[in-house]
């Protein structure tokens, strides 16, 4: 008991080289009480009636060519793009964010970190948009700590695009500290309709209040609770 939902159907997509897919499934189940459905990248169709789709972190297809480029052209992504168009919430974390930009679901691109190094630590983020299906359990301006672990997290888009997404309130999370050279310190970005979120930090690694702060903390939990609550109250 105590679980907020009935029949929350979340799907987690696994590409060859994904390595945070299990963490994502564990986080979704911990918050919703429903086991996440595991989906293989080669499938052409998604299971019927998904309420939430997650693209996990990792190194899909070895990140050959560019991070996320090959996964963005895989059969299942066509189905994900269709589902996003129907309004199904789609969360891409880390490599998932890179797949979302490469697929065109989100604007811009994630380049090599400005400092050239892989960054793996907990960082402070500011919640910029607390109205989306993913962020409504946060408050605007709230500071949270979520771990990052990436080599290509340096968000880039041209000034016109940056001004547009800022003007439309589509920056969901912003780094409170210098992390990877991202334009405007963008850490998480929504699509125009607000049902697609890409972010470099890993909320699925921050869902346990008991964990030592250096191991992630629990600030990512509200993100999943937001999505589950949105479904239950919908």
């Amino acid at each position, binding site marked *: 008991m105590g679980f907020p939902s009935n029949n929350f159907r979340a799907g987690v997509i696994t590409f060859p080289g994904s390595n945070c897919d299990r963490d994502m499934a564990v986080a979704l189940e911990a918050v919703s009480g429903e086991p996440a459905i595991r989906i293989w990248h080669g499938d052409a169709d998604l299971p019927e009636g998904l309420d939430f789709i997650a693209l996990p972190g990792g190194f899909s297809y070895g990140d050959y*060519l*560019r991070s996320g*480029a090959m996964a963005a*052209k895989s059969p299942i992504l066509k189905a994900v793009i269709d589902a996003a168009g129907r309004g199904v919430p789609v969360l891409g974390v880390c490599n998932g964010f890179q797949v979302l*930009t*490469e697929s065109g679901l989100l*604007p*811009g*691109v994630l*380049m*090599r*970190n*400005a*400092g*050239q190094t892989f960054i793996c630590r907990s960082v402070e983020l500011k919640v910029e948009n607390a109205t989306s299906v993913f962020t409504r359990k946060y408050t605007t301006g709230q500071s949270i700590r979520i771990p990052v672990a990436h080599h290509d997290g*340096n968000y*880039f*888009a*041209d000034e016109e695009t940056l001004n547009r997404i800022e003007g439309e309130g589509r920056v969901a999370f912003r780094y409170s500290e210098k992390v990877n*050279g991202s334009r405007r310190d963008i850490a998480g970005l929504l699509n125009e309709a607000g049902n697609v979120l890409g972010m470099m930090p890993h909320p699925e690694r921050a869902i346990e209040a008991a964990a030592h702060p250096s191991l992630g903390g629990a600030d990512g939990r509200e993100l999943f609770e937001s999505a589950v609550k949105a479904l239950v109250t919908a």
Partner: protein
Amino acid sequence: MKVRILVRLKPGVLDPQGRAVHHSLEGLGFNDVEDVRIGRMIEMEVADGTSDETLQKMCEQLLANMVIEDFAIEKLDGAPASVGEPA
């Protein structure tokens, strides 16, 4: 037909990798280097008669990310070279 695709960052896009290499060259005493930009070369064997338009589409849809990269197409075995700045 052999085709070589050169993918490189657009002018103005910061290239931290190039900058790091530039710095290392200077460390080795090569002080004449003014700028370093790093790109990617892709060589493909394609059917004879593959159109320039098809090659351009390959570049735009997968081989280059048009947000930050330009590409150039070079045909290696005598066919007239086409430079692939997309229209």
